[in-house]
């Protein structure tokens, strides 16, 4: 009846806090279970407990019982558990061990001494299940993020486990990659018990049979997806799908047709825009005829002309490999253009996607002081400036902490602080919200907005369209090294054909808005709510 039974599970890491505080959970055979919760709530720990990696490979204090496919994970050899449970991790780079897709899939089978003929059949089957047949001889470096995660899923599938666990499998992926992974899971639904820990709730609720909310190491709510998001706290740290959020704001009107009725009129004049508009000012960045070719011959940027005004908040969007990061590297001077030129008026700073690439000092204080020392400031001035910067990013009081012991969102904020320390007028942030929960995303983006309001020019590279819609006044769409659209975010999000060409899906509320009010473009839930309220008032 049940593939997984967890009874009163408590787990404390050897040198850390108690990560799980009495979890009770039963997962039925063939069920698709979604685990949601803010970062640090215990999602990954719970996933590792269900595979036996905790407590068998991680040190800590364990209480309670976890039975997986009839096996007690504390008493059964990991190798035996692996036959029943497979896990896909967040980072696609780490989990691919071999140099071709085919070898990756064969690797676990070789480890279990599966005969060669049987191996061939299973590899073939797993490739088919994940639709990766044509990539069998490809090197992992040649695959996109979504394809790499599909290989990781296929590698797990090859062992034909009953249970597949996926720990934030789409966090590092672009919209196409996310869709590929969820499509694959959709095909596997019903054939395996699937457990997915995710921040991407809009996709998750389409496929999950049940969702659980984990907070501070405890399951605080569980329900069917259709009811789940109506019952959880708005500040639970979980992204509530936009249409449900709208419905909740309207007093739990669950029938979308009813909402349609409320706004079924010429509402253009009633849209109260909540997202920022473009600004007209002097040029901060001017890119002319930019072309960049990598040494291996890859044309990353192919004739880009661009002008960014001072004080603009711009979003650069497009699929992976479209040239976004290369363009940013050319702007900051890390890459020398093959053709064309870049002119920058003012000091420029860049925050990288992974804060771990950027932090190298012993303490939080030193990290912020580093740039200031290079600028030749006196120690007293540095002290004052660091205190100010840490206050802005909300890290005051952590001056003496080692950066690598901070949580990821704090490391991300520290990376921003370290960049801000050099007082740049133009700030480029690459994927500021990857792997962040809804509260952390809001904190980081609000910080960037405050900086923008103080006159800083902000350019963000992101796959999160909700963030673009809410924060960016201007949006640039790139594809194949070229800019295919550039304009006010509202205009760009009204051009579904352009977005489709760049494989970008606009926010759920924008799509819904287009269906019911084709003549206007709604960017946020708040805007749509305003429209409905106006109608109610009338």
């Amino acid at each position, binding site marked *: 009846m049940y593939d997984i039974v967890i009874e009163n599970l408590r787990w404390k890491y050897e040198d850390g806090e108690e990560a799980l505080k009495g979890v009770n959970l039963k997962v039925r055979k063939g069920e698709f279970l979604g685990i949601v919760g803010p970062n640090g709530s215990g999602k990954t720990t719970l996933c*590792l407990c269900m595979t036996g*990696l905790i407590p068998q*490979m991680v040190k800590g204090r364990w209480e309670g019982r976890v039975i997986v496919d009839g096996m007690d994970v504390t008493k059964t050899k*990991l*190798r035996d558990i*692996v*036959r029943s449970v*497979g*896990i896909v*991790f967040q*980072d696609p*780079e*780490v*989990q691919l*061990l*071999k*140099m*071709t897709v*085919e*070898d990756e899939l*064969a*690797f*676990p*089978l*070789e*480890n279990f*001494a*599966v005969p*060669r003929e049987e*191996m*061939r059949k299973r*590899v073939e089957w797993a490739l088919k299940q994940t639709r990766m047949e044509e990539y069998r001889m490809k*090197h992992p*470096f*040649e695959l996109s993020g979504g394809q790499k995660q599909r290989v990781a899923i296929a*590698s*797990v599938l090859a*062992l034909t486990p009953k249970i597949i666990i996926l720990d934030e499998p789409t966090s590092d992926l672009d919209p196409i990659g996310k869709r590929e992974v969820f499509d694959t899971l959709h095909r596997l639904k019903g054939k395996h018990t699937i457990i997915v820990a995710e921040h991407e709730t809009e996709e998750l609720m389409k496929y999950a049979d049940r969702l659980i909310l984990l907070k501070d190491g405890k399951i605080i709510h569980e329900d069917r997806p259709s009811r789940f998001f109506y019952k959880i706290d708005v500040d639970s740290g979980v992204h509530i799908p936009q249409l449900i959020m709208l419905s909740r704001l309207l007093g739990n009107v669950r029938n979308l047709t009813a909402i349609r009725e409320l706004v079924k009129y010429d509402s253009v004049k009633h849209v109260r825009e909540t997202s920022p508009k473009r600004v007209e000012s002097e040029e901060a960045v001017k890119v002319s005829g930019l072309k960049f070719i990598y*040494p*291996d011959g890859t044309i990353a940027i192919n004739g880009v002309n661009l002008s960014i005004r001072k004080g603009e908040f711009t979003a650069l969007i497009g699929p992976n490999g479209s040239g976004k990061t290369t363009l940013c*590297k050319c702007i*900051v001077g*890390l890459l020398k253009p093959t053709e064309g030129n870049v002119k920058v008026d003012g000091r420029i700073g*860049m925050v*990288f996607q*992974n804060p*771990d*690439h*950027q*932090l*190298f*000092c012993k303490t939080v204080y030193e990290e912020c002081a*580093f*740039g200031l020392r*290079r*600028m030749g400031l006196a120690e007293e001035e540095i002290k004052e400036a660091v205190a100010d910067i840490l206050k802005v990013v909300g890290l005051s009081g952590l001056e003496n902490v080692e950066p*690598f012991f901070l949580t990821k969102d704090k490391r991300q904020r520290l990376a921003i602080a*370290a*960049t801000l320390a*050099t007082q740049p007028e133009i700030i480029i942030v690459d994927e500021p919200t990857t792997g962040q929960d809804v509260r952390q995303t809001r904190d980081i983006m609000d910080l960037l907005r405050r900086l923008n309001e103080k006159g800083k020019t902000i350019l963000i590279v992101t796959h999160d369209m909700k963030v673009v819609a809410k924060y960016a006044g201007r949006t640039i769409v790139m594809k194949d090294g070229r800019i295919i659209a550039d304009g006010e975010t509202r205009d760009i999000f009204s051009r579904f054909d352009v977005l489709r060409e760049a494989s970008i899906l606009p926010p759920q509320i924008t799509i819904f808005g287009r269906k019911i009010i084709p003549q206007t473009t709604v960017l946020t839930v708040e805007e749509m709510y305003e429209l409905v309220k106006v109608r109610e008032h009338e």
Partner: protein
Amino acid sequence: MSMRTLFLHLPKESPMTKLHPSLKLITLIIINLIAWIMEAPIPLLILVSSTILCFKIAMIPVRRIMRFFRFILLIVQAVLISYLLGSKIPGESVYITFPWGTYISETTLLYAFTMILRFFAMLFASTLLLATMTERDIVYGLVYLHLPYSLSFVVSLAFKTMGVFIDDFIKVRDAMTLRGVSFDKGSLLERAKNYASLGVPLAVLSIRRMIESSYVVAMRGLTLGGRRTYFHEYKFKIYDLLLLVFLGVLLAITLLLKWTGPLSFPGWPLRR
């Protein structure tokens, strides 16, 4: 059909890529051994030329390996400096005598040239073979040589990790450059210090990746010493056998000629 090897993307398969994996490893060892044994410049020149010819046979795009040339030039410089400034090889004419007692004779020049040829032979042969080998070749090559699978796995993982490490290295260096750290300017000591500071984030990233990789390896069922099967099967073909015999004979002849004298350095009698 194009293929990606450890270092390169080759446009198509060649006789070199089709060799048995274990033979590729054996060839690598034997060519290096022969180059190490030889001391005569002419045979070494022939060995270097043959290796260069093999690049053509292997269809390796020369443009792609040009980046290694800077490294090779550095070695040439180092060899030249060490022999020219730090050796005492007698010759018929001594061109310069240094205050610290070493000197340059015509034999010094010939010996330095020979040593450079020896390095070239070893480097070209290693580059050639590694440029035509895949990770699978290394794993299966070592397995067919009856070495434990754990060793093959560690070696292949090291090659895979190298790519990720280089990627991290570039990103960390870029991030530090943007915060004002210069890796190209300043004294040698300053530059060394700056490069050393790269170590902190790289070490942290590597440790994190290592922990995650160990979970992945455990969840793929790998155990040390357990029975396992292999997805691919390689057969020793006739041309593999011919090459093996040729290499064996070549090694034997080299040893014999070195022992009897023709492959020894022609300047040695002068030293005696």
